[in-house]
């Protein structure tokens, strides 16, 4: 390979290369061998298939919402139907896609390998997680098929408890069950990271991907039970009228929002932190450099997890909370933005003096960094108390969290899926087509959500079925962008499926990356390593890798 080549792709000779005969996919056959597996890699693949399925259902609802909003009049569907659309979109995307997306697929697949372990600490609980997820997903689909639910994903009381006649309890149980899937995954990760690191794998030699999953797992384990409690109370209030949230019985409807956001704000970090882990790996690999300020990036993940628990009231600044408590929560919300800024700058400076190439995962990572910067800085608007009064509950907030969740998290997820696709399947995805998809996604995204910031400041409320005609230009732009975005998301599913059979053989380490996962065969063996690895170098040590490769070459020669 010449030094001036613009790619680091290092594939084995395609005429002789073959997928290793023995790997985790070929080790056993039959449906049951998948459904009863304890192998973290197989469970990760099960998750990948199921979350992709739910992503496209959630995406279909997004498409219907944008189609309705093409015109100011409520002309496509009835109001109740529209309300069910955005409720389903929110519930599926948040609880069945974003929360499990990176941790349950990439995290599940990679964390044991990155730590040099054979599997997660509790393989059977890992499988149970997937079944709980599936049960939650099935219940959600049941609620959908039986007639839907129109609470919004936030289940605001007393609307959800006393004023709606849809499948609220079914949906709440679905989220309750899916929540336990998340708790078990988090627990599994925490125990694995504490107890199953291979010899030499100290905390500060772990890849940053593992650090960010550790932080996210703490949030999952501590936060999700509160969501379970608040949804249980909503269910009990509906079924037997216990009156915790009912003002006519002396309950406090605001209490529900405190409980709900106590989980649902940290949930944002559950979603974004694993994505940040992906970006650290990808940026390091494609600039051939260790991540700038490793410890700062590692601790900023922990800081986000810590501060993330004490900012929930910023969702309620206009709801008649005490002005002084609002002050405290505004200040803490400002503080939680700092670790994210630290990460962005550290990733940028990782590029400095690197040797940068621009494969698809890197393009998605750049997309993440740009869009997450916008998403993060518009969060400052909302954390500023006075500004929040104008912006909250409008399309501005919709645009803000889509920049963070879709522009940030989904970009990171796609970056990670492309990056580790050769490891997971043993085959490469088609490079130019996937670059096209990354660019299309980016353009579509900007076009969809930029206009929403403007229309939000103009005052257009969220969750509106109809809107004043002067907002139409911006809504048309947004719908046009959503169409482009839809194409951008359809492309990967097509070419990734194609690559399963026709993709080039990837070999062990197509990116010449340093992680332990790249030092084993692709796809890995069921037991990951043939002998227990010893970690004798820092994470992202490209010099070690160079020497290792040199040694191998001499041995073969």
């Amino acid at each position, binding site marked *: 390979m010449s030094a*001036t080549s613009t790619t680091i792709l290092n594939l084995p000779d395609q005429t002789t290369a073959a997928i290793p005969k023995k790997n985790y996919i070929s080790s056993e056959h039959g449906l049951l061998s998948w459904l009863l597996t304890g192998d973290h890699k197989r469970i990760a693949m099960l998750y990948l298939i199921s979350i992709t399925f739910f992503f496209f259902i959630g995406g279909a609802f997004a498409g219907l919402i944008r189609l309705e909003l093409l015109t100011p009049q409520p002309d496509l569907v009835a109001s109740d139907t529209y309300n069910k659309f955005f409720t389903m979109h929110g519930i599926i995307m948040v609880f069945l896609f974003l929360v499990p997306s990176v941790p349950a697929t990439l995290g599940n697949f990679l964390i044991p390998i990155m730590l040099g372990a054979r599997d997660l600490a509790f393989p059977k609980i890992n499988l149970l997680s997937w079944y709980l997820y599936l049960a939650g997903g099935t219940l959600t689909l049941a609620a959908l098929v039986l007639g839907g639910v129109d609470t919004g994903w936030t289940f605001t009381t007393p609307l959800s408890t006393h004023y709606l006649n849809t499948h609220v309890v079914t949906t709440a149980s679905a989220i309750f069950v899916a929540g336990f899937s998340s708790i078990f995954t988090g627990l599994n990760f925490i125990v694995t990271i504490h107890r199953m690191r291979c010899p030499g794998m100290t905390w500060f030699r772990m890849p940053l991907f593992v650090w960010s999953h550790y932080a996210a797992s703490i949030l999952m384990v501590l936060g999700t039970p509160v969501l379970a409690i608040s949804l249980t109370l909503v269910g009990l209030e509906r079924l037997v009228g216990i009156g915790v949230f009912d003002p006519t019985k002396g309950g406090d409807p605001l209490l529900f929002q405190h409980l709900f956001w106590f989980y649902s704000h940290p949930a944002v970090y559950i979603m974004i932190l694993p994505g940040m882990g992906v970006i650290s790996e990808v940026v390091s690999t494609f600039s051939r450099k260790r991540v700038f300020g490793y410890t700062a990036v590692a601790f900023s993940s922990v800081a986000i997890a810590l501060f993330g628990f004490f900012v929930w009231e910023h969702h309620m600044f206009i709801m008649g909370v005490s002005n002084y408590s609002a002050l405290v929560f505004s200040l803490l919300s400002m503080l939680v933005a*700092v670790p994210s800024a630290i990460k962005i700058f550290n990733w940028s400076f990782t590029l400095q003096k690197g040797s940068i190439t621009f494969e698809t995962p890197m393009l998605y990572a750049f997309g993440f960094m740009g869009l997450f910067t916008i998403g993060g800085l518009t969060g400052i608007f909302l954390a500023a108390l006075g500004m929040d009064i104008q912006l909250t509950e409008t399309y501005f907030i919709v645009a803000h969290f889509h920049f963070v969740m879709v522009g940030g998290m989904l970009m990171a997820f796609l970056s990670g899926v492309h990056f580790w696709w050769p490891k997971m399947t043993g085959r490469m995805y088609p490079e130019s087509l996937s670059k096209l998809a990354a660019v299309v996604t980016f353009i579509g995204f900007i076009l969809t959500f930029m206009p929403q910031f403007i229309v939000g400041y103009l005052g257009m409320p969220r969750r509106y079925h109809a809107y004043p005609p002067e907002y139409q230009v911006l809504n048309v732009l947004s719908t046009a962008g959503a169409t482009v975005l839809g194409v951008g998301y359809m492309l990967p599913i097509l070419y990734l499926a194609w690559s399963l059979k026709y993709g080039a053989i990837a070999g062990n380490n197509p990116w010449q990356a340093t992680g332990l996962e790249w030092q084993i065969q692709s796809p890995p063996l069921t037991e990951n390593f043939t002998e227990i690895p010893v970690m004798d170098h820092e994470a992202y040590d490209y010099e070690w890798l160079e020497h290792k490769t040199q040694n191998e070459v001499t041995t073969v020669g």
Partner: protein
Amino acid sequence: MGISEVLWQFLVKWLTNSALFPREASTIAPYMDALYFFLIGVTVVGLVLVLLLIGGFSFRYRKAVHPVAEQIEGSTLLEAIWTIIPLGIFLVTFVWGALLYFRIYTPPVNSMNIYIVGKQWMWKAEHPGGQHEINELHVPIGQPIQLTMISQDVFHSYSLPEFRVKREVIPGRYTTVWFQATTPGTYHLFCTQYCGTDHSKMVGEITAMLPEDYKKWTELSTSGMSLAQNGERIFASMGCNACHTGNASNRAPSLAGLYGSKVQMANGSIQLADAAYIRDVILNPSQHVPAGYAPIMPTYKGQISEDGLIALVEYLKQLNTNYRIQQTQTTSVSDQAAPTTPGMVKP
């Protein structure tokens, strides 16, 4: 010239019909917009900085020109710089935002009070003069208006984007917001908290008028009875005046001059008698027993609407003497034999 004229026309039309910013129609709007532009500036500078770093490094250190990476551990100085500078900017934003928040949610003492009741899916406004409006609100310009709001069912949110104010309207609790309109015109009113089927139809218009036009409007749309007078009628018809006579020997405290005073409670606490207090005493009397009185007041929960409660609050606000209560006592006793139907009382 023909083409450029068409283009000019199109541009003018497009710019006037699809604004990027809402009109500024209240005294608070310029303050809100100043912070907004500051934050847009911060965002643009931050974004440009990140893009320059990514773009610059990507160009300068791409593999073709920089084939071998140089390993760098990190830099404490740089870490400190990009921790402290964003923190500083965020803290400035925090202080600025907090000042704006307190300005929006602290009504001036001379403001005119209008009551808003939200219900699925309409806004009812009640002016002190007894005017009622549905999904509309008429206000004079140049006068601070305070809205005291409550919901009869679920959470709603009263949003006036051109005035840059918004406040959640909550069941069982009064919330307030204030504004001072500056330019006559009609403006949007939205419910911004999702409240069920017709959430997006819970919209209306705010009409800001010159003070003399507003005066004309109030005269034309009066219901003939002020909110306080309506409250007095309810006070009598619910039998409140049977106990709250103002006689020191009676079993219930005098209500004259109660509003705005501090009340010594039986459990030792001191409570401020504001609108929320009065409403809550009527609905949950056992929770608010004044010192020296027995907890004998029955609850009026379920017997009186939010509108009725507002009228009572407004009545007690203006009650300075018990003279009329004592005068009407005999009348109200005979009223109990044949209670009047609400709404049938002649102005």
